[in-house]
């Protein structure tokens, strides 16, 4: 199918434009380097054309992996006869920076005879400040169409699409090499001329930047101040973790009530026997207990989305650089690591934007220890068992939230310490310096963030749901037969569990927890479902509260609960993460070594936790 290439500098709003034009929902954030892979989507209003979104790059001379991906594919694509047009997105509020790359693109397109349109994005920001750029003058000078648009509001997109639709001449080929010698020439000398040309064009046709930067500077004074910066950062992180528990509680309660209500309505129709036992114990105990965590995933993703879109995350990366540097990481590691709090897979992809191979490797080591959303159901269950649901300050802060914050902090610190130790003892080729563009502050676009969060929650359900259903079915069959669930200890599951029990006995855990831990190697959240199924066979209901009460009644020692928390904080149990890690690091050896090392470390740390807790009891 004929296609249109979408290229531009990082944080120029390219992916937001892609989403607007295709109706898709690629990840967007107000932070450089969010797009790390090529995305393809059909243009909603021109369905005969595909739009290909490239990762942002500052020039056609890449220095990071994400830029290399973009540049190599872009240059290959220009030779593809199916490529009908190139859209080069520039940030209309920071024209000079974007124009250097844009001039390179126009030159490359000219060589290959490809038509190109310059898309000056963020027109709404200019309009809000009563500023503008001279698109007509710029278009005349560059010899290519220049269209002002706003990917956020959609303004100007009709002009852009009508330009793509029209049988326009090859505007690049019609370029006058005489008049535009900079674009026509090649080599290092021309590069310097391109800077001069970009500067001249921005000065002549761009908007004055002072007014735009003034507001940003005022906010930076507050968010990056020596004292205020650190305090705000701590406060924002605290709110992030409190929101996961406290703010999502009403929705969690609603889901729980819904599951109970559905079970109460459905089960009487099933009568008795194996089918009823299966639906009650496997379906409602397994999947029901897991569905209750979906609101938390939504809230977590939503709050991170707000931080990204506002432009604050780039400031957070700046503030974190110095402490992260101590562990051999970079400020740029902060975003992948924070993304790892939602899911390790996009976090590993995001690490591509780290130029230093060493810092990237250390980030890979740290990411699996970030407390991802798959761990959340496990943490929530264990915290609900051992920590009272009391709140302070009118319900804004709760002990359960504080405990979650502590275990999250533990996971993060473990990641940092391991990265630091590897950095200290592994041979080093030196650190690479840190440089990053600071994006403008923006009011977050709530609807796209909510849509993205819903998509993430849906992905969590669909991805984990299939695995959980399979695992719970297997667990149920193993636990139900051969004695129709009358004696779990004598079931096939009991036999397997008792065979494994010596591994988990030193942690104060019986075979049931051992079975749940092993099943969690498919996906961590399966732990709760499996435990629900196992406890359900013994009479537990189909939601978290009875499961909590059942475990509390079984008098699981506090030391074992803490050991489980520590084990899950460290162990690398997610098969998908291991596969992506191997792909991105181009090393299965590294990925498998990490699995073994983190498992051994997790078991040892859990054992130590159990022993230390026993000293105080």
């Amino acid at each position: 199918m004929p296609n249109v290439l979408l290229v531009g500098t990082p944080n120029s709003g390219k992916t937001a434009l892609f989403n607007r034009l295709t109706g898709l929902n690629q990840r967007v954030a107000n932070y450089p380097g969010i797009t790390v892979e090529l995305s393809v989507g059909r243009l909603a209003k021109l369905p005969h054309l595909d739009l290909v979104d490239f990762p942002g790059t500052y020039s056609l001379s890449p220095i990071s992996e994400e830029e290399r991906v973009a540049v190599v594919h872009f240059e290959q694509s220009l030779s593809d006869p199916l490529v009908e047009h190139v859209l080069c997105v520039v940030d209309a509020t920071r024209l000079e920076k974007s124009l250097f790359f844009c001039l390179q693109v126009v030159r490359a397109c000219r060589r290959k005879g490809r038509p190109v349109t310059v898309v000056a994005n963020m027109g709404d920001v200019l309009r809000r400040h009563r500023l503008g750029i001279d698109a007509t003058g710029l278009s005349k000078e560059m010899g290519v169409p220049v269209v002002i648009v706003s990917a956020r509001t959609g303004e100007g997109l009709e002009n852009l699409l009508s330009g793509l639709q029209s049988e326009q001449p090859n505007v690049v080929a019609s370029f006058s090499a005489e008049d535009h010698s900079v674009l026509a020439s090649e080599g290092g000398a021309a590069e310097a001329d391109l800077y001069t040309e970009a500067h001249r064009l921005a000065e002549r046709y761009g908007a004055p930047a002072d007014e735009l930067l003034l507001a940003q500077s005022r906010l930076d004074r507050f968010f990056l101040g020596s004292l205020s910066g650190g305090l705000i950062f701590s406060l924002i992180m605290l709110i992030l973790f409190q929101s996961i528990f406290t703010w999502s509680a009403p929705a969690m309660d609603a889901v729980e009530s819904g599951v109970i209500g559905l079970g109460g309505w459905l089960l009487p129709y099933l009568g008795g026997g194996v089918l009823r036992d299966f639906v009650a114990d496997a379906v409602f105990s397994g999947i029901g207990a897991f569905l209750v965590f979906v609101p938390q995933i939504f809230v977590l993703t939503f709050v991170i989305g707000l931080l990204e879109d506002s432009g604050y995350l780039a400031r957070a990366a700046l503030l974190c650089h110095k402490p992260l540097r101590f562990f051999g990481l970079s400020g740029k590691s902060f975003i992948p690591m924070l993304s790892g709090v939602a899911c390790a897979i996009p976090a590993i992809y995001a690490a591509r934007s780290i130029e230093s191979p060493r810092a990237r490797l250390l980030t890979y080591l740290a990411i699996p220890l970030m407390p991802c959303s798959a761990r959340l159901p496990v943490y929530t269950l264990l915290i609900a068992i051992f920590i009272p649901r009391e709140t302070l300050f009118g319900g804004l802060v709760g002990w359960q939230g504080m405990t979650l914050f502590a275990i999250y902090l533990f996971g993060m610190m473990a990641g940092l310490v391991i990265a630091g130790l590897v950095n200290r003892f592994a041979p080093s080729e030196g650190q690479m310096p840190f440089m990053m563009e600071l994006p403008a502050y923006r009011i977050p676009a709530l609807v796209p963030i909510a849509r993205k969060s819903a998509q993430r929650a849906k992905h969590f359900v669909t991805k984990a749901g299939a695995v959980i259903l399979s695992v719970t079915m297997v667990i149920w069959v193993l636990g139900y037969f051969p004695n129709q669930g009358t004696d779990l200890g004598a079931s096939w599951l009991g036999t397997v569990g008792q065979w494994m029990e010596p591994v988990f006995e030193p942690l104060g855990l019986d075979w049931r927890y051992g079975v749940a831990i092993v099943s969690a190697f498919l996906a961590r959240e399966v732990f709760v479902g499996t435990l629900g199924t196992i406890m359900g066979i013994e009479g537990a209901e189909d939601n978290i509260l009875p499961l909590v009460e059942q475990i509390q009644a079984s008098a699981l020692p506090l030391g074992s609960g803490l050991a489980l928390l520590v084990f899950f904080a460290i162990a690398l149990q997610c098969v998908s993460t291991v596969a992506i890690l191997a792909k991105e690091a181009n090393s299965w050896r590294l990925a498998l070594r990490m699995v073994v090392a983190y498992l051994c470390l997790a078991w040892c740390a859990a054992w130590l936790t159990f022993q230390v807790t026993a000293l105080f009891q």
Partner: protein
Amino acid sequence: MIRVFVAGALLGGTAHLSHAWDLSLNETAELIGFADSLSERYRGRLQEFGFHSGEEIRCQQQPGFGAPRVFRVSNATYCLDRELAEQVLVRRAGGTPHA
């Protein structure tokens, strides 16, 4: 403060230079080049950002605890860590040499 010998057209001999990390908060200076020790890769990236000789550079923010500092160059803001900012050579306003 550093003392750098720059051989070339930029300064035409020995000069006492300051670097971007030395700039005080809200101080503006003229960018005059890069230390020889800066790799081509980073020199190129800085140039792509707009760090060219003759450009104005302003120290916008100095977050505490050794965090990278924020500089405004052209119409955008960038943060550079100490290691890099010390390789960006500047002439402070008024042409006063600092040594």
